[in-house]
């Protein structure tokens, strides 16, 4: 049987890879960043059960690493796809990591001595923590191998790093290899699964909410890191400049989404994660006042409506049917004011908040157009990968043998991504079995 190429190491890609690998199919799992895990690894908890996100994901990540049928290609990208269903040749560009994965134990001694230690914003924590040029993307990273940021590393950019390369000296296993080069490999595969997830809309451009100018305006993903026990503040929510936990918080929904100027679609998950985030605040600090601003509370899944009710009735989270028009800041205290139309009175009203969390739109990844071109598949008008028929062929791309799973197809939550990923794996397996994956398309 031919191998399968899975693009994207988030929860959808992981699920697709594991399903196929379990069936005896060799899977090439290509991930752009140095670790698999994707967005789910960055979340603190998941709604509506408040499971610890990384705790439930980490075993699956480890399964990928351990599985004899899964070959992980991290720091890699797919550059081209030739051939046809059942007989593709994929070109994969593997960026040099400059660390020998077979030697590195991830002990982190190199990171301790890097001259840039603590100077480079860490992608995983959205810059809320700083790293060096050599770093582990996050504590539970898989593979547990250090990575050198070749754009920042002094030695790689300047050809010289002080007297000697401290990281190389610190490594007891001789794992650091500055001579490592990018390489291109060609993979023979029978089918391809695309599961590249989403990017986060940057709300800096939306002047009305002051993100980027007001320190206490955060995006929801930043908030996830801040409230996470293994995050930059150890799970302590801190308000600038007092470093105290917020007495009052506002969550603003649909920031950049359901917005014809930006992304017209509904991201399908923000109502629930905002509710979860507010509940998390209440669990940490029961006396903190939490308000969620949204127009439609889209709690459409099992137990979701009940979860919202619990948030309101048990935890005392306030839901206000409004989209705030503006957030202002008192320059002296950094305290924020949220301005909105009160649904009851119809009048402009304001509330003070120590922290504002923006539910920013989850948008198609920046590289989707390029990837679509490389793979020869189409995008829809919102730049999600187009499926052949949203009803009966919801995992088939416009090119036979290439399947789509997860948020990159259309907005959806984790379980839908996982189900769809398994579905894509089923279709890919059908192709390998040469019984035709398009029997009823």
């Amino acid at each position, binding site marked *: 049987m031919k191998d399968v190429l899975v693009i994207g190491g988030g929860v959808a890609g992981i699920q697709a890879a594991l399903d196929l690998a379990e069936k005896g199919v060799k899977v090439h799992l290509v991930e752009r960043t140095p670790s698999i895990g994707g967005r789910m690894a960055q979340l*603190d908890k998941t709604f509506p*059960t*408040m*499971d*610890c*996100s*990384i*705790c*439930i994901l*980490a*075993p699956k990540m480890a399964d990928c690493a351990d599985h004899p049928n899964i070959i992980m290609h991290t720091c890699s990208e797919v550059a081209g796809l030739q051939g046809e269903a059942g007989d593709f040749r994929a070109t994969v560009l593997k960026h040099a990591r400059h660390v020998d994965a077979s030697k590195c134990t991830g002990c982190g001694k190199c990171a301790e001595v890097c001259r840039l230690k603590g100077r480079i914003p860490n992608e995983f924590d959205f810059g809320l923590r700083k790293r060096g040029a050599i770093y582990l993307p996050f*504590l*539970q990273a898989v593979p547990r191998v250090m990575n050198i940021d070749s754009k920042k590393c002094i030695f790689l950019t300047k050809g010289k790093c002080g007297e000697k390369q401290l990281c190389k000296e610190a490594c007891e296993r001789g794992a650091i290899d500055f001579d490592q080069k990018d390489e291109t490999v060609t993979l023979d595969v029978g089918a391809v699964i695309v599961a590249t997830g989403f990017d986060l809309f940057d709300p800096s451009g939306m002047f009305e909410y002051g993100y980027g100018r007001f320190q206490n305006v955060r995006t929801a993903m930043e908030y996830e890191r801040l409230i*996470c*026990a*293994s995050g930059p503040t*150890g*799970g302590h929510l801190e308000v600038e400049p007092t470093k105290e936990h917020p007495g009052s918080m506002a969550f603003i929904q649909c920031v950049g989404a359901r917005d014809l100027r930006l992304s017209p679609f509904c991201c399908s998950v923000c109502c629930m994660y905002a509710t979860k985030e507010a509940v998390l605040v209440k669990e940490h600090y029961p006396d903190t006042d939490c308000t969620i601003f949204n127009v439609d509370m889209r709690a459409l899944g099992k137990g979701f409506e009940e979860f919202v009710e619990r948030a309101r009735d048990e935890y005392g989270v306030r839901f206000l049917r409004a989209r705030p028009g503006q957030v202002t800041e008192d320059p002296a205290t950094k305290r924020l004011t949220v301005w909105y139309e009160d649904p009851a009175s119809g009048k402009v009203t304001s509330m003070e908040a120590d922290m504002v969390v923006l539910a920013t739109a989850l948008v198609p990844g920046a590289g989707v157009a390029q990837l679509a071109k490389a793979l020869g598949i189409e995008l829809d008008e919102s730049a999600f990968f187009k499926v052949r028929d949203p009803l009966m062929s919801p995992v088939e791309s416009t090119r036979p043998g290439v399947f789509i799973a997860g948020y990159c197809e259309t907005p959806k939550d984790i379980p839908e991504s996982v189900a769809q990923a398994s579905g894509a794996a089923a279709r890919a397996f059908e192709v390998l079995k040469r019984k035709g994956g398009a029997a009823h398309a």
Partner: protein
Amino acid sequence: MEAESPSGVAGKAAPGFEPKIVAFCCNWCSYAGADLTGVSRMQYSPNIRIIRVMCSGRIEPNFVLRALELGADGVLVAGCHIGDCHYISGNKEAEKQIARTARLLEILGVDKRRLRLEWISASEGQKFANTVNAFTKEVRELGPAGYGRK
């Protein structure tokens, strides 16, 4: 009940007393949480000896009692948060068994604080360290439990 001292058989801690603590951790959450503590290099008192079980539901009252009998000064039982049990409801069984054990300790006159049940998830490395440190401190203040050292 005043006479029946709640602080266990033995009296005050001798200076330099280092308590012996046995911990039972479930494989999926709290043992993993303890791993994260290590990975994060958070420091805690070395008095603790961790015994791994697959699920906190595997922990029997006699594990705790036996540890105390043999000279443990404190016993920590840690599992997944309620609702997160890898085995559906094993931690609820643990909760029940440990509550029952705590009642037995009360009757035996062993300070209940010597037995602690905590839910520690795989991401709560800090909580694991804090729990161990706080528990060690508390048990140190309680002094020796007094069994097993005759």
